């Protein structure tokens, strides 16, 4: 295979940057324009600041943002903890037999199907509730803990957890192999560390450091999730995508500028986070 010349390389890099950065910039530009009524139909003679004033004056957006970040953080923390515990407990067994194959199964389930499965399992009249009724723990659906359409978002977290944990488990298992973690752990124990100390001081920091980019990207996917919060979430509070979609495509067209103001804010927030992360990476790279 012919290696590309430096000029060709720069050209492809330019095209790639334009395609990635350009699409985000265009989306942000359009959201900003729509948030002030530009490009709207029927055309407006003046700009409309109602979307931004609603954004800053009402609690709705901030609550949505806080709720979405909270559910994302809880899901990520639980999924990481569970994946690490399973890695420690199962070790090499993760690569043998049915378990190795079964771990890939949740990755193939689309979010809509996962939401329906979550509903069938977790709702007040779902499978778990029926089992609880059969063994006499509950006597009517309302006595079963509300996990679906629950303002605390427990159904969303549990279903996301079922989808996310196997991914992290597979990732940690492959990283552990790549980093030769068993060897490092045995060296640590040979130097006097207990098994617990070896994991806490060597294993976990190494794994989390190596996986941080994937964890970050998956966190963004959870933050922007739509199907699960739509199908399993409460009518209030709701997660980012659901709230934005309701404002942009709801009955009330007057809510559209607010919907686009939320979209633009969310994009700006993500871009700020990305810029901060890139700067940190850059600083880490030049550190001696």
């Amino acid at each position, binding site marked *: 295979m012919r290696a590309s010349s430096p000029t060709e390389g720069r050209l492809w890099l330019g095209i790639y940057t334009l395609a990635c950065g350009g699409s985000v910039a265009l989306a942000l530009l359009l959201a900003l324009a729509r948030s*002030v009524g530009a490009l709207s*139909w*029927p055309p407006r003679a003046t700009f409309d600041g109602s979307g931004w004033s609603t954004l800053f004056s009402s609690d709705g957006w901030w609550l949505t943002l806080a709720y979405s970040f909270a559910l994302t953080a809880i899901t990520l923390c639980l999924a990481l903890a569970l994946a690490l515990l399973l890695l420690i407990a199962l070790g090499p067994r993760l690569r043998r037999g049915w378990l190795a194959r079964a771990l890939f199964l949740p990755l193939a389930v689309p979010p809509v199907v996962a939401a329906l499965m979550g509903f069938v399992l977790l709702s007040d009249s779902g499978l778990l509730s029926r089992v609880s009724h059969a063994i006499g723990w509950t006597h009517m659906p309302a006595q079963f803990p509300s996990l679906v359409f*629950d303002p605390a978002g427990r159904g969303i977290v549990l279903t996301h957890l079922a989808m996310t944990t196997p991914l992290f488990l597979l990732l940690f298992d492959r990283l552990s192999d790549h980093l030769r973690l068993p060897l490092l752990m045995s060296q640590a124990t040979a130097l006097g560390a207990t098994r617990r100390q070896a994991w806490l001081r060597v294993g976990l920091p190494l794994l989390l450091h190596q996986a941080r980019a994937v964890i970050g990207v998956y966190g963004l996917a959870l933050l922007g999730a739509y199907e699960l919060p739509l199908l399993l979430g409460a009518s*209030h509070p709701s997660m980012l995508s659901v709230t934005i979609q309701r404002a942009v*495509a709801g009955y009330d*067209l007057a809510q559209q500028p607010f919907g686009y103001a939320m979209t633009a804010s969310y994009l700006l927030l993500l871009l700020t986070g990305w810029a901060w992360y890139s700067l940190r990476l850059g600083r880490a790279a030049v550190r001696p």
Partner: protein
Amino acid sequence: MKALALRGALSGLLALLMACGGAPPPDVDPRTLSWAGIEHAARGQQVHLAMWTGDAAINRYMREFIAPRVRERYDIRLEIVPAAGDIPALLANELSAGQPRSHLDVVWINGETFYKLRQLDALFGPFTRHLPNDALVDWHNPRIARDFQQEVDGYEAPWGTVQLLLITDGARVPQPPRDPAALAAWIIGHPGRFTFDTAFTGLGFMKSLMIGLSDDRAVLDGPFDEARYVAARDRLFDWLRAVQPALWRAGETFPRDVAQLHQLFANGEVDFTMSMNDGEVDNKVASGLFPAAAHAYALDSGTLANSHYLGIVARAPHKAAAMVVINELQSAEAQYEKQRPAVWGDGTVLDIARLPVPWPARFATLPGRERAPSREDLASRALAEPSPQVMIRLERDFRARFLAD
């Protein structure tokens, strides 16, 4: 000035993007053609009909009865596009992007959607008088001629008539409450067993209560009036605040739409559901979703009755075919099939007396509804839909007061 320049630049960019797609050929206005000419122009076309697809019985009727029929008779391929309250937003986006042709031809609408689409100038028309079956429509019925207090003006063709009914399970609720006060007492006496959705049907329930809690059934008739709306809304919100702690999940959350509410009722989580289709209870029991003892009724204070319609998108690429499809949906055969309780149970918009033989006799001998009062019995409890602004304001105010949005 800078803002105008930005807007101009953005519009220019969009226009450039549109131009890359190639301009479509100019449309022929089907209203200038004879009906035979319209049918000829419709042949081989594909019609995209945007509709709510949340009911399996309605979807089956469209997929298994209407689509094969228009394919066989007129060589038109009917594609159903799932959509509902987002139709105005979809079309507004197309219009603002300068899209010369819509991706939709026909839209299933009424009330606030019609109001929004007329505001956007997104509907084609007037076209209804060009449809042969329009002569059979019962235009003398004010609930058909006026859509949420608005003149239809030939911009939407009536398709069906409905009335909001509460549905309960006779085995669980042998003596269902008959008026708002009795309903409040029942809810408070049975905590967690009643709720309503926050979409179209739930808003219809709340609008029914707004009128039902007033002494005057015409309290919201006519154009939107802020003072009358606020008074009716406050009466409703007082009623809701009184029952809220006893609603399902203590009134902290509500089903997203009526399909979710039906599911809660079918699973035994609540004792009531409701439907904007007064014939739905029969087909839901027949399909096994609702318990055999389920039945529907209207509150003595009345429930909303309205019609639903079909409109043609102003920039629809296949207007002639859209007109043919709508005419077929208004035909006696299609309306008869639609009204059968086992199929959909939707009321006809046709004036039965004007139908040719044998249709009057067929409609007269339609299998009766088993679990809902007859339309004649319901007529005395039918309330006129208030103007669309009531629904738009009510949704916003309800979310602000009860969902803290």
